[in-house]
């Protein structure tokens, strides 16, 4: 059940985007992503909430969907992702690249 908390909250953010963004959540714990794979809809604005439950900072990064964001220990970051084509998009934690790995699967 914790899998996709696809809350339909019309993106807390009133900023710009006319299309309603879909919300997804991820947690970082012991320098790993939980879950490490997320199914997301293709062709939609996405909002990814990443909670870092470790005490130290992590940098959430993806070359596949161009994200780069520092998340301090114990904080939650909101990452906006422009509509994706179907496919697999990897992301990682730059500070712990060997363990912090995950992917979005857009369908």
């Amino acid at each position, binding site marked *: 059940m914790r899998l996709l908390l696809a809350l339909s909250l019309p993106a807390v953010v009133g900023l710009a985007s006319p299309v309603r963004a879909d919300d997804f959540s991820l947690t970082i714990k012991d320098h790993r992503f939980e879950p490490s794979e997320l199914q997301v809809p293709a062709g939609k604005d996405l909002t990814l909430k990443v909670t870092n439950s470790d*005490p130290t900072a992590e940098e959430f990064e993806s070359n596949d969907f161009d994200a780069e964001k*520092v998340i301090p220990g114990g904080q939650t970051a909101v990452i906006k992702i422009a509509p994706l084509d179907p496919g697999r998009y990897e992301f990682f934690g730059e*500070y712990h690249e060997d363990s912090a790995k995950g992917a979005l699967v857009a369908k």
Partner: protein
Amino acid sequence: MLGALIIVFREVIEAGLVVGIVLAATRGIVGRGWWVSLGITAGVLGASIVAAFAGAISNAFAGSGQELLNATVLIVAVISLTWHNVWMAEHGREIVAELRQVGDDVSAGRRPLTALAVVVFVAVMREGSEIVLFLYGIVVTGTSMGSLLLGGVLGLLGGAAMTALSYFGLIALPTRYIFSVTSILLALLAAGMAAQAIHFLQAAGVVTALQTRLWDSSWLLPDSSIVGRMLHVLVGYTDKPTGLQLLTYLTTLATIAALMWWVRSPRQAKPAH
């Protein structure tokens, strides 16, 4: 240790290249060492402050604080670079002439130096805050701290070597080309930074126009590779640019070129300075 070395090196390369180009661009201008050092020192302080307030910054503006901060400082750097280039296009010749006369007006070169000190500050602050957070994490967890810090120091030295390399590479050019080459490099740097500012504004959701990606050249030269990163700093290369990023890039370049051309072209009744 290797992990720390790679991360610190990656971040320092970017700031290091900027410092190298700025040093080459200001060669021969009195007091540049002081201004560049000031930029670096302020950048390190700024980086520590940004790292210390990382939590508050990311929570600001509905979670878009980091992106907006990045976009803002990048835009400040773009304006400084533009101003520097235009000012140098107008006064470069005078400065060179003046410098040949011993003890002449030092202040002639001071104005563009403040602009470039700002650019150095921005580059060091942006890359530095990530290093500070990373190293702080190491210190807090305390795992084999010595070797990790050693990696950090080696990474820092590697980045400093990049500064030296770009600086000496540039000043090895024949003197008459240095001004043109560094002007072009600074203009490309500005265009790249402007495109990156757009990237952050798009990531923050503030700007949504033209956000379709034009191409994907990550199979050929990924942003994450060392060469990709260096080209990213130098000419603003990005493997998946959006339409607005490209448009901003070209507009910035064209604006700087037009302004430089305009101040250099002979005008009648030129206003006094």
